[in-house]
């Protein structure tokens, strides 16, 4: 089969690039409100999170409710690295090292958590990932790390128990107060480059031999095992890649803030669930869908801002309505009967 330029995969790249050009044009003409400008980096963060969670949920077929935990680990590792290196290197190099640190630390956590978790099945797996996410958030709230001339000091009690040298001491992670003074290195351009990188790795993973093995496990574990696919290895691989990109998203997120703290709002299970909503609404295993869902669902509450206190109410009603409209058998029949000419939601069998 000849390669098509406008294949479904390439359309994901085009979509991102077109969006980038469009936003840059709007920025140049100054027609973007400051609210929207502030949303650009978070949008990239959410897109990376949604695409990376789709590896676990859509491609591997395991329900994970702890994705925000990996983001949290990555964010703290990256921000810590940035603060630790400080001004000894140019800002770009520091950010690159921070990104690598975030990705590596998050993937190490992915392996540590993945080995026990992936032995479980279905809803049990989901609840254990949720538990791990909450534990990570909790530990970040009581972790104190400081550096002085003698090296690093770590404590789980309080900043004073670090025993820092008063002259050269510097508290980097200050328990529930988090990390302050991270350089604000995240820009929309870097965000888009990271989104493209995530897309590149994910799409190539899906179409590789490895990706086919992972999807075989999703479709029928026993059949996959019987033809010699190493279940543990491929499950762990998918889970770890997913965690690594969540870590990268975390680093991007951390470098967009002055103060990084682990609150229930940004790293709790609610965040994990929000990312899951992006993935399910965009379509399981559908990368382009994840991107669109992440962007639309992040912008929707902002666009409804004029409605003030009603906006989250409308958001929730839209969420329920969309789910029922796109999944319920009655709604499907209705759509085929009366709205067939609109041709939306091409029928594809995705298990």
């Amino acid at each position, binding site marked *: 089969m000849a390669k098509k330029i406008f294949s479904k995969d390439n359309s994901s790249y085009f979509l991102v690039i077109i969006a980038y050009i469009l936003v840059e044009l709007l920025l140049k003409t100054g027609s973007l409100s400051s609210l929207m400008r502030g949303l650009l980096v978070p949008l990239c963060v959410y897109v990376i999170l949604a695409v990376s969670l789709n590896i676990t*949920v859509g491609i591997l077929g395991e*329900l994970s409710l702890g994705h925000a935990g990996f983001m949290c680990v990555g964010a703290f590792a990256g921000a810590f690295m940035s603060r630790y290196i400080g001004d000894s290197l140019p800002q770009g190099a520091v950010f690159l090292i921070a990104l690598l640190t975030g990705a590596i630390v998050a993937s190490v956590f992915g392996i540590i958590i993945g080995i*026990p978790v992936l*032995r*479980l*099945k279905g*809803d*049990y797996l*989901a*609840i*254990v990932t*949720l*538990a*791990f996410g*909450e*534990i990570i958030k*909790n*530990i970040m*709230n*009581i972790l104190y790390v400081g550096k002085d001339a003698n090296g690093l000091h770590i404590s789980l009690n309080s900043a004073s128990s670090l025993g820092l040298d008063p002259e050269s001491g510097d508290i980097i992670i200050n328990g*529930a107060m988090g990390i302050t003074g991270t350089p604000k290195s995240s820009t929309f351009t870097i965000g888009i480059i990271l989104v493209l990188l995530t897309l590149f790795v994910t799409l190539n993973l899906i179409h590789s031999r490895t990706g086919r093995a992972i999807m075989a496990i999703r479709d029928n574990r*026993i059949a996959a095992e019987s033809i010699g696919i190493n279940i543990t290895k491929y499950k762990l691989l998918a889970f770890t890649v997913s965690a690594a990109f969540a870590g990268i998203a975390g680093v991007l997120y951390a470098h967009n803030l002055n103060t990084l703290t682990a609150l229930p709002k940004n790293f709790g*299970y*609610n965040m994990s*669930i929000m990312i*899951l*909503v992006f993935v*399910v*609404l965009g379509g*399981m295993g559908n990368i382009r869908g994840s991107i669109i869902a992440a962007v639309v669902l992040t912008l929707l509450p902002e666009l409804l801002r004029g409605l003030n*206190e*009603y906006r*989250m*109410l409308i*958001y*929730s*009603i839209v*969420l*329920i309505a969309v*789910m*029922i409209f796109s*999944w*319920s*058998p*009655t*709604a499907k029949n209705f759509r085929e009967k009366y709205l067939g000419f609109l041709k939306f939601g091409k029928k594809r069998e995705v298990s």
Partner: protein
Amino acid sequence: MSLVSYLFNGLSLGAVYAIIALGYTMVYGIAKMLNFAHGDVIMVGTYIAFTAISTMGMSPAAGIIISIIGCTVIGVLIEAIAYRPLLNVSKLAVLITAIGVSYFLQNVALLIFGSDTKSFTSVVSFRGISLAGGKLNISGETIVTIAVCIVIMLVLTIFIKYTKPGKAMLAVSEDPGAASLMGINTNGTIALTFAIGSALAAVAGVLLCSSYPALTPYTGSMPGIKAFVAAVFGGIGSIPGAFVGGLLLGVIEILSKAYISSQMADAIVFAVLIVVLLVKPTGLLGKDIQEKV
């Protein structure tokens, strides 16, 4: 003596978790769905009781009954509108709808009652008892909560074992297809399960806020998640499991708050869950389901 009083506090909190977990576990057993909105039904029930008792000046008993009726109606409505169209289609789709319902309930409560913390007056007028010459005080709330939990547990067990609707529930949770062939109204049975679960949520909410009086639109979400953990801990789908899981979880939480670290209590609870599931992957009293090739 302080250990004993911590144990009682833990059992009281655990009894609330157990009542909520019963709702989770029954719904899971019969509909195989994680009802993420269950925690918010608790919150709505508590607001109804609060309005009836504090704002309208009704007696606590009347307030509780109104709250139970309100929650039952809400639970059945949620099931009929948001879950039933999707129940047999995709588990994940229902999960997302449940999250939507959860946001919806929180925001409705936010619109009606505002985001400020309401102070819930305890519905228990019984003073409590003092043992060992005043060294050990057990509050009335603690005793009532534990007693109510045990009564609910017993009534539910009898209901499921010896009544027709109860047996129908067991049948539907075992095999919905076969159950409907035997003339059981599957949709009706599922609706009944939601009704019972939501009624229990109202009771749990009132008891929870009698001991911990702060009431906000987000009051239900953390106890909801903890009760969900308790249900999984005891083996999701199993009623004695929810009871045991809830009580254990409450005791572990209070003891780790008292003796280890108050900030780490949640982390310890979750860590215990992970260890239990790794040793026994279907929870303490869960059934082991063999996979067929």
